[in-house]
């Protein structure tokens, strides 16, 4: 069974290769799938032990371009899910972070000599980040259970420029710079339940009082952001 499975994979790979190389009967477009490869390349080449900040959220890219004109559709997708539970002896915090980023746009690719390929285009971008954090505290004076929910919904557009080095005919290593205008609506909500010990002067006793509260704020921001070519994409053409 496993031999058949491996054989099927190998056969399909050859099919893809053959499909990609035959212009006369094949489709009129090239497909590119890219993946963010900074960490991988750092591991392989052992560049340095530094960790510069990366602000490109698109982990996976896909482009389909016409073989004749070099222009076509480009998509970028990024999704991060992070669940953390931390704290100390007197406090416990649980966080769930969901960050989603999508871009769809037009792109035109052109070859610069045998080894280089430059691309330029424009994208529409949509992103949504949500963070839910619950923190539980216990102190001599109060016990608190506070949930914060922050969301950021962004929408924007802007130009993109990319440069790829062809390691082989099918495998490329490249980077990109973007200059996106982004409009973001941020909202922040706090749900709190706090129990404090109050003093009753009539009886001389203390007693617990629990208060619940909900607050919500929101704001809108606009920004024009230049993203430097700090991210490397490993792209496969097929």
């Amino acid at each position, binding site marked *: 069974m496993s031999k058949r499975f491996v054989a099927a994979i190998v056969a399909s790979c050859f099919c893809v290769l053959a499909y990609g190389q035959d212009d006369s009967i094949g489709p009129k477009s090239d497909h590119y799938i890219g993946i963010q490869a900074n960490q991988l390349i750092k591991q392989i080449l052992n560049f340095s032990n530094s*960790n510069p900040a990366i602000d490109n959220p698109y982990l996976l890219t896909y482009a389909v371009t016409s073989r004749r004109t070099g222009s076509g559709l480009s998509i970028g997708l990024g999704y991060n899910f992070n669940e953390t539970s931390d704290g100390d002896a007197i406090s416990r915090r649980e966080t769930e972070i969901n960050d989603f980023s999508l871009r769809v746009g037009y792109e035109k690719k052109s070859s610069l000599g045998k080894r280089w390929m430059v691309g330029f285009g424009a994208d529409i971008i949509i992103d949504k980040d949500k963070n839910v954090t619950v923190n539980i505290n216990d102190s*001599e*004076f109060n016990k608190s259970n506070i949930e914060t929910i922050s969301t950021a919904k962004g929408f924007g557009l802007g130009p993109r420029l990319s440069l790829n080095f062809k390691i082989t005919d099918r495998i490329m290593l490249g980077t990109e710079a973007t200059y996106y205008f982004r409009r973001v609506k941020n909202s922040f909500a706090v749900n709190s339940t706090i129990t404090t010990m109050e003093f009753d002067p009539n009886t001389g006793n203390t007693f617990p009082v629990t208060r619940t509260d909900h607050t919500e704020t929101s704001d809108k921001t606009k920004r024009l952001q230049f993203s430097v070519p700090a991210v490397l994409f490993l792209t496969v053409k097929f």
Partner: protein
Amino acid sequence: MKTRTLLLSLLMLALFCNACKNDDPELQTAYLELPGQPLDYGQFNDHIPTLGRVLFYDPQLSVNNSVSCATCHKQVLAFSDNTALSKGFENRLTTRNSMPIQNLAVSSFGIPASLFWDGRENNLRQMVMRPIVNHIEMGISDPEVLARKLSVVPYYRDLFKNAYGTEEVTSAGIAEGLSSFLASITSTNTKFDRHNFQGEKLTALEEKGKALFIGTYDCNACHQVQNPSGYIFAGTFSNIGLEDNYADNGLENTTGHRSDAGKFKIPSLRNVMLTAPYMHDGRFSTLEAVMDHYSEGIEDHPNLDPRLRSATGEPLNMHIPEDDKTAIIAFLNTLTDTHMITDPKFSNPFKAR
């Protein structure tokens, strides 16, 4: 065969679920432990830094009671953090590495030192409120909201009464208490200080490192280690060629001048052995990596510090031999102040039981 595979898969799944099981222990109750009389902070009214000490360690300064100032500024690390980018109240990463806190009140020629990596503040009382109202760090919407929040906490009524003679909790009192506490955190008892002022001997390796630091490689041109704050002229910033195109432009974000792009505050090297990782974004995990940068890794940049250019104008990669790096690091170790990082008057007053 299929049954065995299925059973094995179920066993693995059970083990995985068990590993993920939430087995957090019960929380302990926090209580505040302060001496009857305030500790000696060397200030006119030591009740004010005492109030600041409680505020500094109190997670109620964040919107969800999850982080305090001390979360990112740990005493044992010279009030820095041992992570490249610290996490805020929602576990979101901040954008810069936490700077150590020490000798903040030291100014040169009466000029207050610039604060933060990008020098966006030079007033300590205003600086202490910035992380509190930052939407990633502590998330409080307004200093007045914090004052109202703390005014129902019984111990703050007492602490404010002691400090200011009134139980009213105010944002101005919070700022003064915190800044007074931070100003009291001083580092003046390193081996290098004792060498300079009391004649304590350095080892041969440390002496070699000192000569290399001050002489051969002229590190002292920027990091003037003989000065408690680290530099003679307050407010110095430098572009040290970390990138040819910075993602974070540092001082330019404050001044708006393109000529300030990539410039960051030159940090004091006091306790530098404790404050890893290094640089504004914590990119270097070790001092060896920092030395490698100055040795071979300086990138050209239009704003590169002229002290880091050779006579021909090229980036000055210093090609520091391994032996010299070892000696310089040995010397830097003489800048560690073990007294400051264990001093009870800077320690956490909240205990658990």
